[in-house]
């Protein structure tokens, strides 16, 4: 076997307040993909940054061995690191819009790396840039090279970023959450691109919170928690026969389709022919659906498909150009603002980012108190009800006087759910309610939503770009593309045997664990 491109043993990285990485060892060989999986704060990104000398001045790094292409890098100076970055180790970050210079065309950005490391003679740079863009699958590379990052789609931006990372032919490519910000079909394209690089002999270190993404690519998987590697093995070992409880928990947290017995309730929301245009763009184009009490209607689609506009129309925060929404058989759109306000408590909302949906000055107690006041709860019993609500969402009264800023992401979303429940609504619109959460927290919040529905009979309009999540909670599904419904029906029907080409494409793009892995998981 050839020598590893990067090898590190017993790596410790500590910051003044916290020891972020404790005793991590790993090696990546040419043509191999090693993945580090863990939730935020697990130390996975810090580990990756150490291999680029990017831990920052505050950090103390010690390692038994830290070698890049056989050269001891443990005592590298900042200058030596700079010669490594880009040339020996390429780095791809999550958000290409932030990582690329917004004031420079992407071609210039890629050329910069080439110039810096004198990788090719100066006069060949323009041609090399085009070659690189072609290599990462950017169509019309000459035209794209002249465009600025904001003029490109998310997928093209990510490709440009990868082109820039591989410009000088580094042996190791580190990709930190390279697809997290992308839509599922684009994600699949980027994963395919990375797989091609791997086949071409590139050593790949992939950092992700998503085991399903990693499953497609990784030969070896390290699971990290609190700075320690809790499990380390080949992909089939880790995914098929996980040993550590944390790995099992992570696997179990991947939302699985649930077979739900359809429960028939009365129609609580009826949307009929909704149309909404913004200027020349039609955001929502003839969308109709029914939502029954105690049921969940999943709305899926990629960014720009009209999901959120549909939600805002249903919430009465936007007025449709045509079409109407009825709540409980009563007209809702077209009512006067005053009349609509009286009915609002019947339809509540949970946002993707709960923090921004809370007044920063308010404590949890005031947040709930306000929602209970709207629901007509008498002042005397509000505190008691607030504590009951907190218990219902799995929190206790110790959070009452805290401000949301001091709560964890999962706790915040629980408070948001408690607030939504406070006026005893008939419907809750959930707009990407778990997209900003770590996977294990995601599973807990989804379970909580499902449990509350069984208990209270509330209906959910559940909006998400994540098909697994939607499949997990929904009875019925609506697939949106460019503002139009391309497919709708029972969740199991649509998400297992889709008839529309677009739905098939969406489903095919979803990263999945192998079937044998799923079976092993069910058996355990």
């Amino acid at each position, binding site marked *: 076997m050839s020598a590893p491109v990067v090898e590190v043993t017993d790596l410790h990285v500590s910051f003044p307040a916290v020891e972020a990485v404790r005793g991590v060892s790993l090696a990546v060989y040419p043509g191999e993909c090693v993945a580090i999986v863990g939730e935020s704060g697990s130390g996975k990104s810090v580990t990756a940054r150490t291999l680029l000398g990017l831990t920052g001045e505050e950090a103390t790094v010690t390692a038994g061995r830290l070698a890049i292409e056989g050269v001891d890098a443990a005592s590298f100076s900042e200058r030596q690191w700079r010669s490594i970055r880009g040339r020996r180790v390429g780095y791809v970050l999550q958000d290409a819009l932030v990582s690329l210079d917004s004031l420079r065309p992407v071609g210039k950005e890629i050329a910069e790396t080439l110039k810096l490391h004198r990788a090719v003679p100066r006069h060949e740079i323009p041609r090399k840039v085009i070659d690189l863009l072609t290599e990462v699958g950017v169509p019309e590379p000459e035209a794209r090279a002249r465009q600025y990052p904001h003029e490109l789609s998310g997928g093209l931006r990510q490709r440009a970023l990868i082109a820039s990372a591989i410009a000088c032919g580094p042996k190791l490519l580190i990709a930190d959450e390279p697809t997290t910000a992308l839509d599922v079909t684009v994600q699949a394209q980027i994963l395919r691109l990375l797989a091609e690089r791997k086949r071409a002999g590139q050593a790949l270190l992939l950092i992700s919170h998503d085991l399903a993404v990693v499953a497609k690519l990784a030969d070896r998987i390290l699971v990290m928690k609190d700075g320690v590697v809790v499990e380390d093995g080949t992909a089939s070992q880790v995914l098929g026969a996980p040993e550590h409880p944390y790995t099992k928990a992570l696997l179990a947290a991947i939302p699985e389709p649930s077979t739900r017995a359809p429960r028939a309730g009365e129609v609580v929301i009826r949307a009929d022919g909704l149309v909404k245009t913004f200027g020349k763009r039609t955001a929502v184009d003839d969308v109709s659906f029914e939502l029954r009490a105690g049921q969940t209607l999943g709305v899926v689609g990629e960014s720009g498909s009209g999901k959120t506009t549909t939600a805002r129309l249903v919430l009465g*925060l936007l007025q449709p150009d045509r079409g109407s929404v009825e709540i409980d058989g009563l007209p809702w759109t077209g009512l006067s*603002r005053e009349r609509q306000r009286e009915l609002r408590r019947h339809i*509540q909302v949970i*946002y993707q980012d709960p923090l*921004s*949906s809370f007044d920063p000055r308010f404590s949890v107690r005031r947040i709930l108190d306000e929602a209970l006041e709207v629901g007509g709860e008498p002042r005397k019993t509000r505190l008691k009800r607030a504590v009951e609500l907190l218990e219902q969402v799995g929190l206790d009264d110790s959070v009452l006087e805290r401000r949301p800023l001091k709560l964890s992401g999962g706790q915040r979303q629980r408070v948001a759910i408690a607030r939504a429940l406070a006026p005893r609504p008939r419907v809750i619109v959930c707009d990407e309610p778990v997209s900003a959460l770590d996977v294990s927290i995601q599973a807990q919040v989804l379970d909580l939503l499902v449990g509350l529905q069984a208990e209270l009979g509330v209906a959910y309009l559940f909006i998400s770009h994540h098909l697994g999540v939607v499949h997990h909670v929904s009875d019925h599904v609506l697939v949106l593309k460019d503002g139009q419904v391309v497919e709708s029906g029972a969740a199991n029907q649509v998400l297992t045997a889709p008839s529309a080409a677009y739905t098939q494409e969406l489903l095919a793009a979803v990263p999945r664990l192998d079937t044998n892995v799923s079976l092993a998981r069910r058996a355990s």
Partner: protein
Amino acid sequence: MRVRAGFTLASVVLALITLAALAPGLLTGSTPDAADALAALQGPSADHWLGTDANGRDLFTRIVYGAAPSLLAGLGATALAVVVGTALGLLAALGGRAVDEIVMRLVEIVLSLPTLLLALLVITVTGPGTVNVIFAIALYTAPSYARLVRAQTMVIRKAGFVEAATSLGLSRGRIITRHVLPNAFEPLVVLATIEVGTALVAAASLSYLGLGPQPPAPEWGAMLSAGRDYFSVAWWIAIFPGVAITLTVLSITVVGRHLQRRIS
């Protein structure tokens, strides 16, 4: 460390001035109008710490008693400007496009006029006195508050928590008083704290020109003005009221900046 010392010193000065304004009797045993012709134009001494003026009145006592009217003009003008400015800012931000245009153009007109000239104009029309000074100063300071509140409100009304409150079913009025205003207010308080100093100097300037409280009322600007004629023989009559004004404004600014850093 130096910052901390400055802040402590400023706080002590402000505390003393506040005490002088609220309970001058605690700091001096004398009264501001007690004239003693035999003791006229005496320099600082054990009997008269800061000397006496042309009428033999004790300067220290007059400065202590002068704290209340001097502060009143600065604070009053700022308070009035904040109230009027907030109302105008809210109106501009929430009243629709036409209202916004009208209010903001008015605000810009006022801001484009030389401030002192505007104040002189107002007092020429209304006549001298503390209340009129307050009006004159508030008139030209209110526009900057209006601008700040308008900008803040426009940002906050788009905030997630305002939409959340709307979805919850809160009325527009409730949302404004409970969520928009309190959140818009924080930077306003900081601006106001610093602007109190500016208003104070403006009020003292108007008094210096004889447009504020009339003699024999002890007011720092007016006292400074009265000391002008005796400057070559009794420098203390003009200097000490001037020092009082400077110290107050300086202390307010230091404390205000400290608040600003704490909040942002």
